[in-house]
Structures are given as structure tokens and as C-alpha cells.
């Protein structure tokens, strides 16, 4: 519509301006395409919810540097997520025997007191550092068994989770799109090679392989991201994107581009890849979900070389024996577990909603 209105003017305008109008038109087309897709996406309440969750975690990740630089967490010896220490002290009145303890929150028998206040006798006051400490005393989510601030750990780990997810997703997209497009375009033995490779990757159970890898190298977060990206990129995602690329390859515009003298690389990267990309981005979301969960599982088993992550927070609580006793130490259990679950779910929700945009057959109308 817009270009039609412009037509009469363009005939009299100099060539340069027509060229300029072209990129403007492109920009406008991209923008209107984005708006149209956004409208479809926004119809999906669940997708919006996922986006909300992701934005919430972005804010949470930003909260860490903000709080450490300007906020109340500037004291590194207390609020450092890894080496910080703070234990609120609780005073106990020491009584002779266990039978005399009337209020276990403020009183303690002399025998037990020897653990903390050696040599104390009845009538003394024993001060015990409380760790893990429940929320309060400047620790909005309490402290962990080593006296470190949970809220600081939680926000610090958010950044790491995003970084991991992003690396894994980018590597997957680059690898899978390239492999899928090349396999589809050339076919023949190149196709067979990549598809058998994908079969082989699919044969490997991801968690055990990553555990084996963690024995070989020091698996840091960026390396884990790359590993997940490669495994997912050469595996299942490559197969899906190849079939998409195949359906693009047979479209007439590919022949048109070939006839007008496009090289193979030009055809693959200028014509096939852009048409496969929407689906790649969709799988990017699912890769993030997978990466976030895998990282948590591996750190939970203590197999990763990270100084702090959500999985590690749970591992600390688990190995120190605080998780088997019930919900008494809920602040050790709930925040980290909910964070992993919610972030993974957020990306999954967005992926599903994008799926409905990309794949019209899933839409309700």
C-alpha cells in the first residue's frame, strides 16, 4: 500500500533517493512484520507470562550489581555470594540440666553449651552464631549453612544462568542452522554424514556424557554452554532444521536465485538460512530451558567448576544435611529450586508461544 502511494513521486526523483527509499521500505516491512508477529504472540497469554518471568529474572540479575555498588550489600565480607560470612548471634541462658530448659529458644543445658562455649557453667550466657540463619537481620532470604547471604547468591547466580543459557542457545543456533542448511542444500553424502552424526549424538545420554566430560576437563560455565550447544546443535535440532531447510530448498525463489547466478554459499546464507532462522530462534528458547536445568543438575551433583549457582546452593544445603529434615530450613530449599524451575519454564513458555506464531496449525483460529 505504502509503496503504491509513493510510486508517482519515485518516477521523478533522482536514483539515490529511490535507493534510500528502498532501505526505508525494508525497515518498514521488517517493522510491520515484527508488529504482526508480536500481535500473534501477544494473543497468547501464556507466552506473555513467560516473557514476564524472563523480564523478572533480568531485573533480578541486574539487582546484584546495583545492590553491591549502590545498595545495602556494599560490604563484601558480609554480602559476597562466595566468601561472605555473617552469622547473627543469639544469646542463650545456660541452665544446669536438660530438664530445666523451659524455653529452648533462649535456654540451653550446660552439657550442650560446651559445643560452643567451652567451660561455660549454669548462669552464664552463651552466644551462638546462627547459621543457617532465617530471613531477617539484613538478610532478606537468610543465610546458607556457611553463613553466606542467600539473596546475594540468588541474584549473583541469575547472571550466570543467563550467560550459560545464551551461550548454549547461540552455539546451538549457529551449529544447527549451518549444519541443517548445508545438509539440506547439498544432500548426498554430506547429508548422510551429518544425519548419522546426529543419530550418534542422539544415542548419547546427555547427563552421563556431561558427567564424563566433567571428569576430563574442568567444566566451567562457558564451557558447559558450548558443550550443550554443540551436542544439541549437532543432534536433534539439526535434524529439525534440516527438514525445514529442505522445504525451503525446493521453493521457486531458490531456483530464481540460482538462475541469476548466485553461488552456493550465497544461496545457503542469503536465501535458505534466513528462512530457517525463525524456527532456529524457537529452538533457541528450548535450548535455554535445557541448559538452565542441566547446569542445575550438574552443580547439584557437584560436577561443575563454578563458585556459585542455583544448583550449587542446593548442593550446599543437601550435603550439609539440611534438606532431609523437613521444611524447617525452607530458605535453603525454596528460592534456588523455584528460580531454576521458573527461569526454565519462562523460556519454555516463550518458546511455545513462538511455536504458535511460526506454526499456524497450532493456533486456535
Amino acid at each position, binding site marked *: 500500500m505504502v509503496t503504491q502511494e509513493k510510486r508517482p513521486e519515485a518516477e521523478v526523483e533522482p536514483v539515490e533517493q529511490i535507493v534510500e527509499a528502498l532501505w526505508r521500505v525494508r525497515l518498514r516491512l521488517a517493522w510491520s512484520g515484527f508488529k504482526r508477529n508480536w500481535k500473534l504472540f501477544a494473543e497468547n497469554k501464556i507466552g506473555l507470562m513467560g516473557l514476564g518471568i524472563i523480564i523478572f529474572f533480568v531485573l533480578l540479575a541486574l539487582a546484584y550489581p546495583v545492590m553491591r555498588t549502590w545498595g545495602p550489600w556494599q560490604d563484601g565480607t558480609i554480602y559476597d555470594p562466595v566468601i561472605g560470612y555473617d552469622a547473627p548471634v543469639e544469646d542463650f541462658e545456660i541452665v544446669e540440666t536438660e530438664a530445666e530448659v523451659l524455653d529452648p529458644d533462649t535456654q540451653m543445658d550446660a552439657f550442650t553449651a560446651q559445643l560452643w562455649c567451652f567451660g561455660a557453667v549454669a548462669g552464664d550466657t552463651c552466644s551462638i552464631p546462627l547459621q543457617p540463619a532465617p530471613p531477617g537481620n539484613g538478610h532478606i532470604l537468610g543465610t546458607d549453612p556457611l553463613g553466606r547471604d542467600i539473596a546475594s547468591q540468588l541474584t549473583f547466580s541469575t547472571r550466570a544462568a543467563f550467560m550459560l543459557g545464551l551461550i548454549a542457545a547461540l552455539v546451538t543456533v549457529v551449529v544447527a542452522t549451518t549444519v541443517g542448511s548445508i545438509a539440506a542444500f547439498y544432500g548426498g553424502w554430506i547429508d548422510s554424514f551429518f544425519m548419522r552424526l546426529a543419530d*550418534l549424538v*542422539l544415542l548419547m545420554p546427555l*547427563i552421563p556424557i556431561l558427567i564424563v566430560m566433567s571428569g576430563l576437563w574442568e567444566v566451567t560455565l562457558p564451557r558447559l554452554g558450548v558443550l550443550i550447544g554443540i551436542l544439541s546443535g549437532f543432534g536433534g535440532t539439526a535434524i529439525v532444521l534440516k527438514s525445514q531447510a529442505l522445504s525451503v530448498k525446493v521453493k521457486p525463489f531458490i531456483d530464481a536465485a540460482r538462475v541469476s547466478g548466485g553461488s552456493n554459499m550465497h544461496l545457503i546464507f542469503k536465501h535458505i538460512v534466513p528462512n530457517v532462522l525463525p524456527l532456529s530462534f524457537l529452538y533457541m528458547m528450548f535450548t535455554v530451558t535445557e541448559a538452565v*536445568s542441566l547446569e*542445575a*543438575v550438574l552443580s*547439584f551433583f557437584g560436577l561443575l567448576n563454578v563458585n556459585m549457582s542455583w544448583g550449587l546452593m542446593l548442593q550446599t544445603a543437601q550435603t550439609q544435611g539440611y534438606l532431609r529434615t523437613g521444611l524447617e530450613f525452607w530458605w535453603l530449599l525454596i528460592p534456588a529450586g523455584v528460580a531454576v524451575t521458573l527461569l*526454565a519454564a519462562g523460556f519454555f513458555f516463550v518458546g511455545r508461544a513462538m511455536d504458535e506464531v511460526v506454526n499456524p*496449525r497450532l493456533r*486456535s483460529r
Partner: protein
Amino acid sequence: MLRFIGRRLVQMFFLFLLFLTLLFFLLDAQPGDITSQFLDPTIPAEIRAQLAERLGLDGSVWSRWWNYMTNFLTGNLGLSFQQYPRTVTDVIAERIPRTLFLFTFATLLSYVLGFALGKRLAWRRGGFSEHAVTISGVLLYTVFYPWFAIIMILIFSSGLGWFPINGFLTPELWRNAPFTGNEVFGQMILSLVIAGLILVAGSYFSRRQQERRPAQIIRLVGYGSAILFMTIFWALKPEMRPFASNILHHSILPVVTLALVAFAGVMLLTRGSMLETLKEDYILTAQAKGVPERDIRDKHAARNALLPVTTSFVLGLAFIIGGGIITETVFSWPGMGALLLTSIVSEDIPVAIGALAFTGVLALVAHLLVDILYAVLDPRIRIQTGN
């Protein structure tokens, strides 16, 4: 069809050799070996070297690889370093039934429920209940699984005290038991499989009925005879029953936890698959023909939506061990997954390769099974492979 299977078997064999080679080099590259890991560090160097020679740890990587491959193909998987001198085959054989029991139970449960709910969810689109079920489904699907398992234990074992906290049997009860745990497991798996087959047969024959009433009766008879079979089977083994029920009691929580998470995935997959099927023209044709809604859902839509779900079901079976690591570790269930984790962490390399190779075999068999099942379920493929 037979030629097709034969060709696939040959392909599978070579793929497996490749996989095994890959595993071998991955694990061979692990730092340290048995002589540095499991032995007293003060042992003299010549004895260490002697031992390495006897265990085949000297020589080049290639000769070790050749040794391993030839041994593997003759069924010799070596000795476990950690449980020396048990053979790897022995260690694995002991663990397999426990894992199979846990997972076939959980997988069947999750697929039956997930498929039934997923197809209904897709059928009734929109509305609050769909959103609620979808959101909780996704949350269950993406839940941080070890954490979820811990919460389940906290609630149902520590809190309500309904189930034991961990393990797969109560050691005190079994001290003087006349059976080994695996004998009981074997019987339990057997009875479960037969009962499952009865149910499958029942639903197959009920689906072939045109009328609603005989179909229902056949289905009920199926349920009834499965229950009857279970009752008779265990009534004939009174001495084994308390032990079986002890294992069952221990397995409920892990099975339910595992099934809940797997169920969510199946439900979401079925829903997606159903939604695609419902957009097909033949659904509109069926409506125009005046086919009742329920038959459209079950006979036309769900029957076609079943195909991808079946694939995921069979492929999912292959990932039992990978997925089993978490469940078995958190619930202290001594199965293949736990074995894999401990063997890798403690560098018991023969066991680790053995367990991973077993996973690979399972996955390959599952791939083959998918192809065969697809041919049975989808007439379009049936014809192609027949030629």
C-alpha cells in the same frame, strides 16, 4: 519388512561399534587409572607395573582399544575396579532389573495418563482449565527435578511418613530372606508385563468394536482379568509376598515422582500433536459425516496424534539410564543410573563404559522398535517398507 529389519540391524551394529569406540576414547582419556586410583600409594613401582600389565593397562591406546573391542564382542567387559574382582557383566546384571522395574512402571503410568489428558486438553481449547493445566504441565516439565524429588520426599516421607525415605528395601526384613532382591524383582516385572499385555489386548479388541456397549464390556473385562491375574499370581507365592510388598512400598514414591514429571512431557506432546491433527481436513470430513464428537476425538484425531507420542515413548525408554541418574541418586535406589554416576565419579572405568554401552544398546533397540511400530501404526509407511 524382514529385509528392512536386517539392513537396520547391520547399520545398528556399525553405529554401535562407533559409539563404543567414542566411549572408549572418552573414558580412556580420563586422568589416572586403577593403579593410581585404587591402590595403596606405597606399593612399589614394579608391582604397580606388573598389575598394569596383568590388567591390560600397558601398551598403546590403540592396542588397549583393540583389546577392549575384541573382548567386548566376546562378552567380556572386564572387571570392576571398585568392586574387584566382580565382573562388569555381573555388576550390571544385578542392577538392571531394579532400574527396569522402576522405569517401566513410571513410564507406562505417565504415558497412559498423559495421552488421555493431553487429547482432552487439545479437544477443549480455551478457557481457564486449559490454561491452568498447561501452566502446571510446563512447570512440572521444566521443574528442577532433583529439587522436586527432595520436596516429594520431604512431604510424603519426612512429613506424612507414608513412604520410606530412601532405599529399595528394608535391610532388617531381608536379613534372613530366602530370596535375593533380584529374584523378587524378576517376578514383579514378569507379573507387571503380563498384566500390561492383558490390558493392551483388551483395549485392542475393544477398539475393534463398532458399538459402544460391547467395546465398554470388553474393556472392563480386560481390566478385570488383569487384576484377577495379579491376584492369582501373587496368591500362588505367599512366601514371596511380604518381600514384594516391601519393594513395592519403597518404589511408590520414586515411581510417582518420576511419572509426574514424565506425564507432563507426554501431556504437552500429545496436546501439540492433537492440535496439529485437528486442523486436518479429514477431521472436518468426519464432522460432516455426522461422526459423534467422541469418536472424532478418539478414532480420528487421537489415532493419528498417537504416532509422535509413540516415538517419544519408545525413545524415552532408551533414556531410562540417563534420566535414572537423578532419580536413583536422590532416592538412593541402587540401579543402573546410580551405578553409572558412582562409576564415573570414582573412575571405575570398565563399569562406566559397560553401563554407557548398555544405554547405547537400549537406544539402538528403541530406534529399531520405533521404525517397526511406525510401520504397524501408519499404513503409509507399511507399504513403503514392504517393498
